[in-house]
């Protein structure tokens, strides 16, 4: 027994000595001679989350939407410059009063089972989403519809109560469902949620729960057969492992963490075999103040806090520099974004001045600012499991401590957070993020009427001029008018700071170098996935459909 152990130990020591650093799979240096688009190959994508439900309207997690987005198309979609272009709808007419949209649908589009796509499918999708039995988080936009009708097989008409600018883009893949397969069934209980039939560029071939989803290209896709024959969504529960799989060649694409992007992908190996991308995400992280709290009712206090924080430090440490400061609720380089609003450079002296003006001074020498005997102490709430937000909160806590404000951080489980604290308005400050929809209407977040329990103006912001502008912005389809309204809103928000807008993070995906045709745009890189291809001689996987 003893001898065996000693032998094993020696063996390990010897072998280890010889091996050394991790062997990196040497892959052929990728240079294309003939970069002609070619059919074939498979794209393997790594994901942490597993989709739960492939019917778009029933799921709210991004993994489900990622896959559903490949299987279903909508009537319209966004072009790279954020203008709206047709998808399943060839064209559309909007009535003069803005109340009626008539979609002219493409002809000859077929569901993956061969049945023709018609306006009935759109009506069916609409009926389903507004049906009270359907548990979906996305009803709201469709409840504004007064009437939806099938004019003929390829014409679908919607009438609204009031002109509603976000209406056009709400007709996305979320409401296009195959009526012939789903009519009369309980949508939540069917096989379809895990084995859908769609009409998008890819169709689900196989789903191995806990491991991967395999999608094959839909040859009869109406935009043309996708070049890449297979799309594999590989589930890997953590990013460190995923990165190893990327290097080993088992996956072709993943979202890199800021550290991976900046520190681990600069070797020659990476430069030769992978392409990295970087673009702002359509989301921003912010610190929201409960405007009903006595501390935060004075604008000067909120502005002081803004001056006390160094946004560039936040971005450097939390995002490793992969982000940009946020000054309002819009993403830079998109048409609603106003670059000329008030900015708050890091200036702790100015912060202390403003606070003094507002009555906050350290009168008792304990290092904490106080006013009328009350020390300046508050709690920032954020959600558990989000390291970026936690780190941002920690940095803010540290900076505010330097000017005499004591902050405590509480991370809560999501539903407790929402129900016990946000909905009941029992918070002082929060650090959260919003996904910015591609349509700039943000009525639900800023309008003073949206302050009831469970509504989204949970900080209780109220400004009549903003209310007015929000209405104006959503009631017209003319971009110039909308732009004017949203620009002015950003000016006001930057002055009043109901939120301390922190940063817009960058998305940092990496894709294996053999895939060509990727065209980065403000909306990302996967919008034209069906047009990506691997040139014939670089193809790695042989796919039999």
């Amino acid at each position, binding site marked *: *027994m*003893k001898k065996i152990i000693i032998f094993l130990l020696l063996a390990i020591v010897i072998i*280890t000595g010889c*091996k050394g*650093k*991790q*062997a990196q799979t040497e892959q052929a240096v990728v240079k294309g001679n003939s970069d002609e688009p070619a059919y074939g190959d498979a794209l*393997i994508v790594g994901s942490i989350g597993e989709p*739960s*439900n492939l019917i778009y309207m*029933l*799921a*709210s*997690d991004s993994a*489900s939407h990622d896959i559903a987005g490949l299987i279903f198309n909508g009537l319209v979609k966004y072009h790279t410059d954020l203008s709206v272009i047709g998808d399943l709808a060839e064209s559309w007419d909007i009535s003069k009063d803005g109340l009626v949209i008539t979609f002219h649908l493409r002809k000859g589009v077929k569901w993956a089972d061969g049945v023709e796509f018609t306006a009935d499918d759109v009506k069916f999708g609409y009926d389903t989403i507004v049906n*009270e*039995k359907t*548990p*979906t*988080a*996305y*009803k*709201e*936009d469709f*409840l504004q519809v007064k009437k939806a009708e099938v004019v003929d097989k390829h014409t679908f008409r919607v009438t609204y109560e009031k002109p509603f600018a976000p209406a056009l883009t709400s007709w996305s893949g979320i409401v296009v469902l195959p009526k012939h397969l789903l009519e009369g069934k309980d949508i*939540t*209980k069917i096989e379809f*949620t*895990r084995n859908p039939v769609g009409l998008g560029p890819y169709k689900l071939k196989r789903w*191995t*729960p*806990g*491991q*991967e989803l395999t999608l094959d290209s839909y040859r009869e896709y109406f935009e043309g057969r996708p070049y890449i024959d297979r799309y594999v969504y*590989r589930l*890997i*529960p*953590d990013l460190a*492992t995923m990165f*190893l*799989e990327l290097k080993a060649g*088992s*996956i072709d694409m993943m979202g890199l963490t800021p550290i991976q992007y900046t520190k681990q992908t600069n070797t020659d190996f990476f430069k030769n075999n992978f392409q990295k991308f970087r673009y702002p995400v359509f989301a921003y992280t912010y610190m929201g103040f409960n405007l009903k709290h006595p501390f935060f009712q004075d604008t000067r206090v909120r502005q002081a806090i803004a001056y006390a924080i160094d946004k560039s430090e936040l971005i450097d440490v939390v995002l490793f520099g992969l982000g940009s400061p946020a000054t309002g609720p819009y993403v830079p380089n998109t048409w609603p974004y106003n670059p000329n609003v008030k900015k708050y450079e890091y200036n702790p002296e100015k912060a202390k001045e403003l606070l003094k003006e507002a009555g906050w001074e350290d009168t008792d020498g304990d290092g904490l600012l106080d006013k009328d005997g009350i020390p300046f102490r508050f709690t920032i709430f954020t959600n558990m*499991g989000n390291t970026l937000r936690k780190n941002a909160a920690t940095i803010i806590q540290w900076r505010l401590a330097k000017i005499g404000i004591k902050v405590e951080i509480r991370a809560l*489980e*999501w*539903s*407790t957070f*929402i*129900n*016990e604290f*946000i909905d009941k308005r029992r918070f002082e400050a929060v650090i*959260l993020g919003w996904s910015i929809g591609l349509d700039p209407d943000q009525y*639900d*977040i800023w309008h003073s009427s949206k302050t009831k329990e*469970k509504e*989204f103006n949970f900080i209780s912001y109220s400004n009549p001029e903003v209310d007015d502008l929000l209405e104006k912005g959503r009631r017209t389809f003319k971009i110039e008018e909308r732009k004017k309204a949203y620009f002015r809103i950003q000016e006001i928000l930057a002055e009043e700071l109901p939120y301390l807008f922190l940063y817009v993070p960058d998305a940092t995906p990496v894709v294996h170098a053999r895939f060509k045709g990727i065209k980065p745009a403000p909306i990302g890189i996967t919008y034209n996935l069906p047009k990506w291809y691997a040139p014939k001689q670089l193809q790695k996987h042989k796919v039999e459909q």
Partner: protein
Amino acid sequence: MISYLFKRLLEMIPTLLGVTLISFFIIHLAPGKPTDILTELNPKITPEARERLEKLYNLDKPIMVQYGLWLKRIVKLDFGESFSTDRRPVMQKIWDNKQSLLDRRLFITLIINLITFAIILIIAIPIGVSSATHQNSIYDKVMTTTVFIGFAMPSFWLALLLMMFFGVYLGWLPISGLKSLNYDALPLLGKIWDRASHLIIPVFISAFGGLAADSRFMRGSMLEVIRQDYVTVARAKGLPEKKVIYKHALRNALLPLITLIGLSVPGLIGGSVILESVFGIPGMGQLFFMSVMTRDYPMVMCILTIGGMLTLLGNLLADIGYMLADPRIRAKQ
């Protein structure tokens, strides 16, 4: 024998009921309603939709009624549907009839634990015996120290260390999942090695702690047995030492070990949470962790109950094993 079994089974029932009671009430510790995870901070949900969901899950009825309704269902092993957005029946998520046996979560966790058991037995017994027979020798001291370290070793730390060394630095073993991406393309032998290589580190870690406890126990048990009179008699009779140890002493020393092993079932199952989370193994432990984080109450209740059942089963098997091994008890029947 049969009557003994029957009595034991009857005894288990109140314990099992107690387990279900605790499993059920645990979920009511959380503030807010159980259906809250189904609604999100998303500017697109209405209060009416929320109410509808609550009715759907019987949350408007008094709590004892809810417990009774639930109990009725689980007798048929119907634990309801998962709250996560895939809404699948809970039992299916841990034992999916459509999946190959090797991929089912419960099976995965069971297999890992069974292999761990086997390894522990194979290694701990000899170590314990030889430690006892060479008491206070250098070998014994080294073994004791190793065992103590094993006992004190946080499993997740060992996991990280091994991952770093074998996975990142040497690149020998995969560090997550149960099989590689190209699994389907491998020949049968390749498939077997693939699965095995994924399990090597997790099983090793799982066994390490148990090895410590069990070999130490084995040593203590052997030491006690060796002091017994009948061992002295056997020696006096002139039997070769090997026979004395392995035939007479060992069989008696093994008995308490069987009980100990039976008792370690809940510990192993509980430990699977950490291992499966660290290594991304899609077993029952990982599912439990995810369900707890996402407040998937039906899932949580199910796994707690199943965990309890497995423990009871383990105890029962240990008892049967003990009975079969100890002639004294058999004689009593």
